[in-house]
């Protein structure tokens, strides 16, 4: 369970998060939406301890996370940009992360699922963007953590890989995990999200189901509902 209270963060003059209160206590897929620069990534990185908030508290299972590190073994994180060291091979990267965390055998199934076996001996610098993203997915799903955080996971994926990703997400949800996901693809949100959190100017503007969002904005379609919020806000 993640609980965020009165979270503030500014980068210099730019105030990114302005008093976020959020409780994530149920299993399921939670989509964090919002225009560019609304603080989605900052919020995620605060939970991961990569960004240090100016004010406020974050607790995971009732433990404060500020300055702690061991709790991150409970989180699988997939970053927005799949930038890896150019000179190491895919298999070496997988081995290294396994060595750092814990042993797992889930990587083999994922390698086969995403057809990564022919790339294992290739250097990461020589892979295409989409293949690198698949490696990124593999690295985050090979550990069995109760909280999964995905920052724009669909970037550069081909349709087959996207289907596999959705399957994995469904399976993990079945296991009772909490999955946080940011994306700009509204179809995906409509299809998989149990709850939507809409960030605007560093605050939570909406927090509820997709249906509730549509009802509130009197729109049939999620894309239009979001556009409606942004229009009325501007």
């Amino acid at each position, binding site marked *: 369970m993640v609980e965020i209270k009165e979270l503030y963060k500014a980068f210099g003059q730019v105030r990114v998060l302005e008093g976020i209160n959020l409780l994530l206590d149920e299993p399921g897929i939670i989509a964090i939406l919002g225009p560019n620069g609304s603080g989605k990534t900052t919020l995620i990185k605060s939970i991961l301890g990569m960004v*240090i908030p100016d004010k406020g508290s974050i607790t995971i299972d009732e433990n404060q996370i500020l300055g702690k590190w061991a709790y991150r073994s409970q989180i699988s994180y997939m970053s927005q940009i799949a930038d890896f060291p150019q000179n190491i091979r895919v298999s070496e990267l997988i081995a290294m992360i396994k060595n750092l*965390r814990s042993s797992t055998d889930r990587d083999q199934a994922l390698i086969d699922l995403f057809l990564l076996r022919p790339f294992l001996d290739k250097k990461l610098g020589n892979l295409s963007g989409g293949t690198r993203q698949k490696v990124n997915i593999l690295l985050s799903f090979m550990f069995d953590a109760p909280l999964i955080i995905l920052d724009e996971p669909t970037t550069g994926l081909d349709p087959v890989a996207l289907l596999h990703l959705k399957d994995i997400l469904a399976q993990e949800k079945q296991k009772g995990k909490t999955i946080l996901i940011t994306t700009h693809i509204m179809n995906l949100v409509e299809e998989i999200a149990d709850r939507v959190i809409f960030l605007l100017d560093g605050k939570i503007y909406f927090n509820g189901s997709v249906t509730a969002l549509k009802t509130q904005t009197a729109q049939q379609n999620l894309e239009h509902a979001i556009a409606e919020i942004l229009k009325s806000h501007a």
Partner: protein
Amino acid sequence: MLKILKYSFFDLMRSRWSYIYFIFYLLMGFVLLFLNNDVDKAVITLLNIIIILTPLIGTVFGIMYYYTSKEFTELLLSQPLKRSTIFIGQYLGVAISLSLSLIIGLGIPFLIYGIARSSSIFNFTSLLIVGGFLTFIFVALSYNIALAFNDKIKGFGFAILLWLFMAVIYDGILMIVMMSFQEYPLDKFALGAVMFNPIDLSRILILLKLDISALLGYTGAVFQKFFGTGRGMLVSLSMLTLWVLLPLWNLTRIANKKDF
């Protein structure tokens, strides 16, 4: 930390530059020791090269390693690892691999010369120790600078400026100050000033060890007079250790506060 250290170490060992650096020292050691009839002269030349080059290479490698492995560092930061573990591990990986290039590169010619010609060459191991210290100090300083600046160009510029300051400008300023205030007693001032520059400290340490008083210069002579040879070496060694530990402490402090 050992895992990160090992990874960074082998990452650098795979880089061509480590070998170029190693071969450079190897060749220089052989050429200076075996083609020079005067061992003392060869060692002085080596001293002058080591004292300028190890800080430069340490600075450049440190800063480049930080910026090129930035994305990977971010991946590590999202793993259950302590921040200080990640950065100290990387730091040790860089510093140890560079020191090894120096120690093995110069060590081989030293050893061969010692066995073949005169075993007195082993006195000059202080050159290697000081080179190692300077590497550890300047990699730590450059890591401090890299963590403080997100902009690669700024970080690189500041790091090079720091090296230039320590290696060249500092002595110049010191000399001007001493010339302008020569009618005053400057012993204590000179002594203090030396402590704040690890390159000067290293030079004095080696010259004290080799007992080449003609080359000690004013600050060195003051140092020797004040502390005596034995205590002088002890003082300079402990100052050099402090020069490694303080930047390391500051490095963990900045790393713990930084947003990634």
